[in-house]
């Protein structure tokens, strides 16, 4: 259980941080595609007998490589191409599952998530990823802030924004890969999106958004683990449902829902 708790904390932090990028850059579809691609890649590994982590990482990066340039060219709604890739990935995932010889228990674990059976090495991977992701956000905060705000503007002031965009996609692939086993292939994206989406409702300060998202990510993981233990239900599911509940509460109580300009004072002024 201790391993699960640690995994939940580290995974929650890493996913939530990535989630902030996904929410603010308005590219949830890239994240979803990469998640399902990672899932398919992991199953490919299980089927062909190589390390599923490598499969997950490779295929999710491949998906990013295809979709990334589409987002790059400003086509933020490439619905058709994304829809095709999304369904392709899911189809491949189930194909590999079907082709797998013997029991499908490994595949099932990847589907539902198996945070309770995480080992020391899983935690190490999660820990390294969390540290790298958070570290990069801290060290390059201003470049990331500018790239998120408006990539072309960031380019025009002399920031290598395209590099940061692809860096963010790379980190997304890495985070998805290491958290896949804990939360499960179908649910992983919710843990990325929900905590950050909740934080987005509550603050006009980007640094605070990163912090709040991480808090919500950890809260979702720990509360979800608690419910999973108490009621003996799959933990991946409880974690994700908890994160959705947090999001709904944040959305309901969001100060950003007030109508702009209705009050004489601005909705929220926060010093930088």
């Amino acid at each position, binding site marked *: 259980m201790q391993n699960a708790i640690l995994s939940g904390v580290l995974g929650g932090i890493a996913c939530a941080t990535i989630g902030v990028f996904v929410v603010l850059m308005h590219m949830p579809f890239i994240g979803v595609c990469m998640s399902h691609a990672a899932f398919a890649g992991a199953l490919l590994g299980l089927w062909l007998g190589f390390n599923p982590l490598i499969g997950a990482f490779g295929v999710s990066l491949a998906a990013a490589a295809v979709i990334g340039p589409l987002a790059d060219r400003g086509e933020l709604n490439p619905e058709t191409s994304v829809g095709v890739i999304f369904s392709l990935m899911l189809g491949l995932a189930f194909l590999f599952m079907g082709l797998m010889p013997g029991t499908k228990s490994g595949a099932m674990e990847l589907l539902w998530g198996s945070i309770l059976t995480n080992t020391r090495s899983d935690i190490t991977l999660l820990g390294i990823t969390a540290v790298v992701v958070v570290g990069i956000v801290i060290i390059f905060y201003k470049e990331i802030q500018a790239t998120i705000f408006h990539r072309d503007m960031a380019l025009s002031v002399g920031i290598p924004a395209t590099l940061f965009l692809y860096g963010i996609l790379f980190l997304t692939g890495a985070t998805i890969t290491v958290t896949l086993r804990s939360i499960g292939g179908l649910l992983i994206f919710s843990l990325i999106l929900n905590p950050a989406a909740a934080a987005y409702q509550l603050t006009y300060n980007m640094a605070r958004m990163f912090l709040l998202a991480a808090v919500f990510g950890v809260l979702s993981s720990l509360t979800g683990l608690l419910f999973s233990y108490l009621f003996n239900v799959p933990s991946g599911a409880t974690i994700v449902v908890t994160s959705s509940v947090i999001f709904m509460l944040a959305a309901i109580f969001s100060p950003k829902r007030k109508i702009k300009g209705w009050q004489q004072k601005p909705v929220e002024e926060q*010093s930088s």
Partner: protein
Amino acid sequence: MNTPVIQIDNAVVSYREDVALRGVSLEVQAGEFIGIVGPNGAGKTTILTIVNGLGKLIHGTVRVLGHSLSPGNGHSLRKRVGYVAQAQNIDPRMPMNVREVVMIGRYGILGLFRRPGKHDWRVVDEMLELVGMTRLALRPIGHLSGGEQQRVAIARCLAQEPEIFLLDEPTASLDWRAKTDIIDLVKLIHDTRHLTTMFVTHDLSALPVACDRVVLMKDGLIWSMGLPQQQLTDDNLSRLYDMPITAVRKRRTEEILA
């Protein structure tokens, strides 16, 4: 001593998949105020993107501030060239305030590992004062009107302390009052700081009267250039925009009376 700050020689430039400039040559001296007009698709935006290195040069040469443009030096050059894009829709829930957005202008010149310091914030506050946005400094950026956001964009550009000032249709989609304010502001900045300025617009009424030179563009080429009074004749406009000269005269009279 009089090397032009911008030297474009027979540039052929692509923009996305199209060839947007088909052989453009232009020299701009330090401190000049160039107005660029022409119909849509003329290549006006593209000519700005080769000055700040974002455009793809297929043929010809471009020298800006003494450096030839090549894939490698784009970032370092862009730190010295300020660019104000057209007014854009900002997400109303974007978690940044006006002051932080203006500070973005200094991120490039700060370099990768430095954080903004007191001096940087002083410059930011100074620029906010210059564009008249001090009172909105802590407002979330997405809550501002189009005109206010353009002023913030100008402040952000100036916070960069650029040597060249590029404005791409800065008054598009702004109301008449905001339009006038922006044009006056740009004129003031040019006059007091002697910044080399290139002002692109498709809206003739937005063209500052104080341009040193006006460049008329059409179909990816420079069609004509010279002093504003000489260039902005009814005859020229009629041929530039493919409008009958009577329609041009009628429209211009209406604009004066409006």
